[in-house]
């Protein structure tokens, strides 16, 4: 450490990495679609953070969420008072959609993080060590890639939800309350979603493994772990970020579908859950389906645009 400081290496490193990100940002700024994606994702984050301020009525377990019902305003079309109308039961659809933003981010971010963790682990080991290990790991990945994952996702979600029961689970350190059923959906989506990402990470590892600086590190006697995490991983970080962003979009879409088919958590009113509850009345109360669906479309579109834009900016080679 002191040696680095003495030779001023640290400052140099910092400046260089800053300029690399600055170059990417300059490229990103020029891309109008990417900027639109950033604005859309930013909107989603702000809505999720300020949902209690933006929503006129509180979230579901609170009895005040049924205020429209007590005021005799159930099944009302969109108006100034209820911009997205009210459901047949008597919830304000606008408030429900606003509160759903938090769950959407929770599902998207956690599935993306867990998926990328598994993908990097498998991809790094397979891509770096190669040979037999690579062969075995890639065959396992193929099993996950080929089969109809939605079917098993539904079956596993249902089994675990019935076994675990409903309610809330408090994350020990952070003290955040998360619905058990929704967390099970997150886990299952991650377990079935890592395979294509792992293949991509493996491909990147195969490419970087052969580069001179890795050979140099090896010649200097660096350990495998050090080479994987300190030398190769930072070099494929841009690909990881891009795929991670696109995985968020995948998770949001899939969670909505799982909830819509009736496998969601009744304690977590996600957008998919609102869509499921509104579907039987869609003929008369179209607003109960149109607005939550638009919210899903908006978020997924935003993350897709952002992911494509990041791919262009960070790594022109990744561009399709």
């Amino acid at each position, binding site marked *: 450490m002191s040696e680095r400081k003495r030779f001023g290496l640290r400052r140099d490193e910092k400046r260089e990495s800053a300029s690399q990100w600055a170059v990417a940002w300059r490229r990103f700024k020029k891309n109008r679609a990417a900027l639109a994606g950033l604005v859309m994702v930013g909107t989603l984050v702000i809505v999720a953070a300020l949902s209690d301020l933006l929503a006129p009525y509180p979230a579901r377990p609170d009895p005040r969420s049924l205020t429209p019902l007590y005021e005799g305003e159930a099944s009302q079309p969109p108006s100034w008072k209820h911009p997205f109308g009210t459901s047949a039961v008597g919830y304000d659809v606008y408030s429900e959609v606003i509160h759903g933003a938090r769950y959407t981010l929770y599902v998207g971010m956690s599935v993306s993080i867990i998926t990328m963790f598994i993908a990097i682990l498998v991809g790094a080991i397979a891509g770096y060590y190669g040979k037999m290990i690579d062969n075995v790991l890639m065959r396992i990945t193929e099993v996950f890639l080929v089969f109809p994952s939605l*079917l098993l996702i539904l079956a*596993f979600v249902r089994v675990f939800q019935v076994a675990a029961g409903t309610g809330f689970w408090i994350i020990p350190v952070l003290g955040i309350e998360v619905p058990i059923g929704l967390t099970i959906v997150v886990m299952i989506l991650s377990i079935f979603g890592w395979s294509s990402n792992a293949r991509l990470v493996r491909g990147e590892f195969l490419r970087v493994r052969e580069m001179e600086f890795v050979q140099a590190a090896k010649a200097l006697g660096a350990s495998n772990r050090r080479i994987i995490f300190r030398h190769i991983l930072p070099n494929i970080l841009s690909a990881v970020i891009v795929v991670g962003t696109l995985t968020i979009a995948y998770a949001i879409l899939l969670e909505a579908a799982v909830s*819509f088919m009736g496998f969601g958590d009744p304690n977590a009113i996600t957008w998919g859950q609102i869509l499921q509850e509104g*579907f039987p009345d869609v003929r008369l109360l*179209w607003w109960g389906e149109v607005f939550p669906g638009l919210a899903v*479309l908006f978020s997924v*579109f935003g993350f897709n645009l952002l992911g494509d834009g990041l791919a262009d900016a960070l790594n022109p080679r990744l561009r399709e």
Partner: protein
Amino acid sequence: MSLFKYVVRRFIYMIPLFLGISMLSFMVVFAAGDPISIATLGRPNITEETKQALRAYFGLDKPIPIQYLMWLSNLVRGNFGRSLYGGRPVNQLIGSWFWETIKLQLVGILLSLAISIPVGILSAKRQYSKTDIIITSIALFGVSMPTFWLGVILILIFSFNLGWFPSAGAYGAPSLWPTIFGTNPFMDAVAHLVLPALVIVYVSMAQNVRLIRASMLEVLRQDYILAAKASGLSDRAVTYKHALRNAIMPVITFLGLSFGGIVGGAPMTETVFNWPGLGRRFVDAAIGLDFPVVLGITMIITVMTLIANLITDISYAAIDPRIRIE
């Protein structure tokens, strides 16, 4: 001869894949702990003796590896076991619903291919033009859209508002619900097919167009395309004979791999349109925790996916002779 050897090798290669998937699917049973106690949860009037008898009847009292082997050997012989509810054979339960799913999916996939190949080529040939931007935006929109929600919107517009097509089912009651297709039974079936097929077409087309465009762009940059153009060939010949044959390879690979995803997406479309197919059967069975039916449908769709993969491999080798030599 070498093509035959290649096909046999691919077929043998699929066996471990099949075993892996079957094991993973079977895990759902022992992840549940004991299917009978889970399926009878919240029904206190079922006594412990009855449960024991049920376990013995369905063979669930044996150790899990034995259960798996019994299930697998029955599966290979085409016997999917009995439903936990009422004990009817799964084959009989699935029956005609299988063909309804096949009908819907085949129409959807073939139509989407027929549209997406020319559209993808057009988009690639006019890269960054207005046409290209419109096509790619529509495609990105399709990738970002929840499949089931698109179905809901189509029902709202074309069924409830315009009254052109029925909103649910595969057949039925044309006199009760007249559509623009009249009351002829065949046209009635077609009218029921239009909206769900449209959903499959749009969503899979969105993926295919993106892929074909990317692949065409890659190929059009190659030197041999320039050479073909320089030697005075027509634009049409260069595009369809020289470029497309090379650009189509990754698309075929992707199609084989994504077939499982497309057919596996059947629960979504079939739930929205109340389509009497495997997907809806599956959703009902999964909600009711009817394991033999869940496993049966999963394995049927797995086998369909593997067959699609095999066909992909064969056509791959047929188009590109280099594959066979390797």
